[in-house]
């Protein structure tokens, strides 16, 4: 693997990690919101 290819792989892994992190953060917020919604609706 050439240095350019290695750089490209790293850049792609970095962007995927960033997107995965953002999605996980969004899921945390969603689960929190679902919990609040169910509690307020009296389903919990």
């Amino acid at each position, binding site marked *: 693997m050439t240095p350019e290819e290695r750089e490209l792989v790293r850049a*792609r892994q970095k962007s995927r990690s960033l997107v995965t992190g953002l999605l996980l953060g969004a899921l945390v917020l969603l689960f929190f919101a*679902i919990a609040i919604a169910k509690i307020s609706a009296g389903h919990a």
Partner: protein
Amino acid sequence: MASSPIMAGSAAPSLPAHWRDFVALTKPRVMTLVVYTGLAGLLAAPGSIHPVLAFTAILCIALGAGGAAALNQWCEADLDAKMKRTANRPLPAGRMDRQSALHFGVGISVFSVILLGTATNWLAAAILAVSILFYILIYTIWLKPRTAQNIVIGGAAGAFPPVIGWAAVTGDVSALPVALFMLTFFWTPPHFWALALFVKTDYAAAGIPMLPVVSGEVVTRRQIWFYTAVMAVAAMAPVLLRLTGVFYGTVALIGTAIFALFAFQVYRRRENDPARMAPERRLFKYSILYLFLLFGAVVVDRWIFA
């Protein structure tokens, strides 16, 4: 998900797939219609649902559709590589390995079902699971490579979203969501075969037994007209059964009359050259608008005129 050279029939990628390719795997454009009909089913349902839970239900419908699309492409990577229309998808283009697509498809499918069951109810989740399994097992694996009528029965998979949206609110399935299911079910053949008429050569190259390839364009045009007639009955059923009001009835009557006019023009034509199929393209484009209009009319009817 590191790439591994396990692909059959297409080039193995040397790079990890870009995140945009995972998005492309979910067929976002197809998902638009699925989300819209699911949302219409949810909004048309009696009763109320917390906005967060409604958002979650629609998100799950979208994720389920995306997962099914990813698994469909995992199954058909070799066929997609043979068709100009699909050759640039992540798998046939060699931008992603098959194992990543499989993991992604199964992952978001299972996640969507569990999340929907937890956030709303398990009836809605069960219908979502059935729709995903139906699309993969019945349509993609069983019917599509075997029969020219594949889209007629397989189209049921795309008809489930309004039922799921409805069930997410009410916890049951009554006459109106079944009517909306039937409308989408009978809408699918004329919609899809209009497309198949002008991409016939693509399907022939891949060996997929689509109706224009197996039975010819004359039979396909006749079948488009026949299913348009059946779809017209399904479109008027909600108002005839008094499940919706006059507003929906008016939109359905005018919209279906235009659909029938376009379908009749397609039925009367004898044209083999895809480059000269303007009426077929018009029917295909209008069929999408038609479904948007009718589902929108159901919601407006239930919210404003009910």
